[in-house]
């Protein structure tokens, strides 16, 4: 039986820019950042409150990625068609204001939902996330 999610992939356009966004804007921490001879860079980050989860910030045009696939991914990101998941916070409105002040782009402001308060935030590659304050 599957019990946990330990790694998941977020495609990004530029790993340096993505690292800066996730660390300096969202407040995540770098879990691993190592480069290899062939140009492959293993870059993972995660929220500080969740040490057992790694988001792999994978460059769309890495060394083993076919150019047409990379172009498709780039197009999907640019058109805002890739969603990264749900980020949780204890106070959506406050986090929204904090991130807005840092220049983070939102697709929609906090709104009351039956499950809590939710905003839609976008990273600097085009991935969107729900930012949710769950009820209770």
């Amino acid at each position, binding site marked *: 039986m599957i*019990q*946990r999610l*330990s*790694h998941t992939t977020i495609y990004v356009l530029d790993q340096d820019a993505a690292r800066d966004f996730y660390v300096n804007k969202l*407040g995540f*921490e770098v879990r*691993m950042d*190592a*480069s*290899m*001879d*062939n140009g*492959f860079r*293993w870059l993972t980050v995660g929220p*500080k*409150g*969740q*040490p*057992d989860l790694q988001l*792999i910030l*994978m460059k769309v045009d*890495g*060394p*083993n*990625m076919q150019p047409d696939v990379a172009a498709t991914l780039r197009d999907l990101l640019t058109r805002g068609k890739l969603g990264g998941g749900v980020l*949780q*916070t*204890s*106070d959506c409105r*406050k*986090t929204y204001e*904090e991130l807005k002040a840092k220049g983070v782009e939102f697709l929609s402001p906090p709104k009351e939902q039956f499950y809590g308060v939710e905003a839609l935030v976008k990273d600097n590659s085009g991935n969107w996330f729900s930012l949710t304050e*769950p009820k209770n």
Partner: protein
Amino acid sequence: MRSRPAQDFAARRSRLFDSVTFARLCRARDYLGVRYRDRITLEHAASQACLSPFHFNRVFTQAFGETPHEFVTRVRIEEAKKLLLADNHRVTDICFEVGYESLGSFSTRFSSLIGLSPARFRRESRRLFGGFGTRWPLYYIPACYQQFFVGPV
């Protein structure tokens, strides 16, 4: 060869904290993360979060799924693993480099968390990844990702 069962973190994590408390805890955790080589008392770490030591220990564990001491130990062992993988430093030097004062306690802690002694960990890793140099990150990359993304190294 992983350092800590992931379910341990989740089992201890119980709730989201208000942003002020969480920011304080993160400040203390960052402090511990940067100063992991030093001997930091619980009182000193708690003062970074403006909390009493007992309360700090309890809420830190609730927020991050590990005690402050376990966190520092994990950071030290992770750093030791990278040093063992990446270069040919003596195990004793690595032990002191990551903040341990005795080789015995370092080896015991490393073995209990990783399941191999430091020397055997290095031997096994070199056997798997072909020695030192830039191949060591392969240790951290699950095989499926290696197959799909890394390509020939």
